C-alpha cells in the first residue's frame, strides 16, 4: 500500500512476437452437430428411462434369484397381473374411484387455502392466524385424523375428503403466503401505480409474481393428498363397492396375492410419475421456466 515508485520491482523486458497460425484442420469443423447418440445421452427423458430400465432389471434378477412369488414377485409376474387387471377393468375402476375422491379433496383444499391466504394478505391479524394454524396443523399427519373423521363423517368418501383437505390445505396456504410475502416492493408499487386494488391486484400482480411458490405448494399438496388417500383407503377398505386403489392393495394382501399387491403399488407409482413429470412439468415449462423465474 505504501510502496513508493522507487521501490517498484524492475520489469524484465520481454520480447514481442508474431507467429504464423498453426494448422487447426485436424480438430475438424469448428461447430459440428452432435451425433444422435450424444443428443440422446443429453435428453432428460432418455436419462430417466435408462434409470427405470436399470431398476427393473435389478428387480427382475433379484426376484428370479429369490424365487419366492409370495414374498417378492418378479417384474414380469407383476406386469402380467397388472395388464390382466387393466384389461378386465378392475384396476382402472379402482384407480378412477381414488382419483375422483382425490380431485374433490384437492379442489376443496385449494379453495379453502385461497380463502385463508386472502384473509392472511388482507391484514396482519389474518397473517398471524394463518401462520399459527399452519404451524399447528401442518406437522399433524392427515392419517392421524382419520379415526376422528370416521366418527364425524362415517365410513365413505366424506371422511377421505376430509383427510385429503387437511393434507392439501396447510401446505398450499403456507407456500402461497410465503410467495405473496416475497413479491418485490417495486413490483407491488408498479401494480398499484396503475390503480390496481383488491382482487384485481391479487389476481394480476400477486398471484403471477408468487407463482413459483404457489406451484411448489401445489406439488407438495398433491403428493401429500395422494399418499394420504392411498393410506386411508388401506385403513378402511370396508365399503368394498366403492373401494379405491388402496382397497385393491388391501384385498390382494388378504388373499396373499403378492403380485397383485405389487401391481397396485405400481399403479400408485405410475400415477405419481405421470402427474409430476407430465402435468406439473408442463405447467412449469409454460410458466416459471418461460418467465425466467426458475431454472
Amino acid at each position, binding site marked *: 500500500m505504501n510502496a513508493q515508485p522507487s521501490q517498484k520491482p524492475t520489469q524484465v523486458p520481454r520480447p514481442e512476437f508474431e507467429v504464423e497460425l498453426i494448422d487447426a484442420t485436424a480438430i475438424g469443423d469448428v461447430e459440428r452437430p452432435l451425433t444422435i447418440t450424444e443428443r440422446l445421452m443429453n435428453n432428460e427423458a432418455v436419462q430417466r428411462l435408462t434409470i427405470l430400465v436399470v431398476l427393473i432389471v435389478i428387480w427382475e434378477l433379484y426376484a428370479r434369484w429369490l424365487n419366492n412369488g409370495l414374498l417378492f414377485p418378479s417384474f414380469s409376474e407383476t406386469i402380467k397381473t397388472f395388464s390382466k387387471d387393466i384389461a378386465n377393468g378392475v384396476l382402472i375402476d379402482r384407480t378412477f374411484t381414488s382419483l375422483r375422491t382425490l380431485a374433490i379433496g384437492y379442489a376443496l383444499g385449494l379453495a379453502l387455502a385461497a380463502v385463508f391466504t386472502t384473509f392472511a394478505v388482507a391484514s396482519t391479524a389474518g397473517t398471524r392466524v394463518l401462520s399459527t394454524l399452519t404451524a399447528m396443523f401442518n406437522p399433524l399427519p392427515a392419517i392421524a385424523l382419520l379415526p376422528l373423521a370416521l366418527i364425524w363423517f362415517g365410513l365413505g368418501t366424506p371422511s377421505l375428503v376430509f383427510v385429503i383437505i387437511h393434507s392439501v390445505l396447510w401446505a398450499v396456504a403456507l407456500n402461497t403466503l410465503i410467495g405473496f410475502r416475497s413479491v*418485490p416492493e*417495486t*413490483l407491488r*408499487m*408498479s401494480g*398499484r*401505480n*396503475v*390503480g*390496481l386494488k383488491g382482487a*384485481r391486484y391479487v389476481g*394480476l*400482480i400477486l398471484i*403471477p*409474481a408468487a*407463482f413459483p411458490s404457489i406451484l411448489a405448494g401445489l406439488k407438495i399438496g398433491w403428493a401429500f393428498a395422494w399418499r394420504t388417500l392411498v393410506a386411508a383407503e388401506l385403513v378402511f377398505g370396508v365399503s368394498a363397492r366403492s373401494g379405491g386403489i388402496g382397497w385393491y392393495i388391501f384385498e390382494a394382501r388378504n388373499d396373499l396375492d403378492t403380485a397383485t399387491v405389487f401391481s397396485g403399488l405400481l399403479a400408485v407409482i405410475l400415477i405419481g410419475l405421470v402427474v409430476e413429470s407430465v402435468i406439473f412439468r408442463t405447467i412449469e415449462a409454460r*410458466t416459471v421456466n*418461460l*418467465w*425466467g*423465474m426458475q431454472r
Partner: protein
Amino acid sequence: MTSALLEVNGVTLQYKTPRHLVTATYRVDFSVHQGDRYVILGPSGCGKTTVLKAVGGFMPPVEGSIRINGRGIESPGPDRMMVFQEFEQLMPWKTVYQNVLFPMKVTKRFVATEAAARANAMIEKVGLTKFRDIYPHMLSGGMKMRVAIARAMAMEPDILLMDEPFAALDALTRRTMQQELLALWDQLRFTVLFVTHSIEEAIIIGSRILVLSPHPGRVRAELSADGLDHNSVGRPEFGILTDRIHTLLFGQTHHLHAQQDIRA
C-alpha cells in the same frame, strides 16, 4: 401567469421504521410546470425518493398539500406513471409488448386497437421492436429500463415520475439512456419529475433543479439548468453550476473539498 401542473406546498413527510419515526422532509415547497424536466437533487437522507412516493400517492403528507392540476392527491394513479430504479418493476410473466400494454389494458384508457398501436409505437421509439416478444429476464439492464420508460410513456401521464432510474446502470449505458430520455423529451415534450443524487446527471437531465438538504429534507435552492447537456460538460458554465450546487449542499467549494480529500 401559467398555473403550475404540480404544486407541493409545505409538505412534511414522515415514515415509521420498527424503532423510529423518521421525518424525511420538512415543509418542502416547489411547483412543476408543464413541459418541465424538474430534477430533485440531494444526498442520501434528504427525502427525495420519499417526496416522489408522496407525489405518486403512496404516502400521505403529515402536513401540507400536494395538488396536480388543482386536484389533491389521494392514491396512486396512472396519471402519474412511475419509473423505478430497480429492474424488477417489469412483470417477469409478460413479454416486452405485454408489459407496455398492461397499464393501458387495466385502466381501459384506450380502446384495444389504439392501445396495441400505442404500445408498438412506443416500443419502436425506445428501439426494442426486435425484442417485442421477449420476456424481461432475457434483456439487459438498459433494455429493461427502456421497457419501463416505454410502459410509462405509452400511458401519456400528466407527469412522469422517475426515481433514480439510471443509478443501477453502468456508466456507458447510463449516458446513452440520458441522451435517449432527452431525445424523447425533444419529441414529446412531456413533464418529468426526476430524482437523482448525481449533480452531473441533474444538470444534464434537468431544466430546473431543486436542491434539498438532508436530515430532514428541506429546500435549499431552485436553479435553472436549461440548455446544459452532455455536450456542455466541459464548458465553464457547467463547472460553475456544479460548484454552486456543491457549495449549496456541502458548504464549501469543490476545490477546497478536493484539497481536503488529498490531505486526508
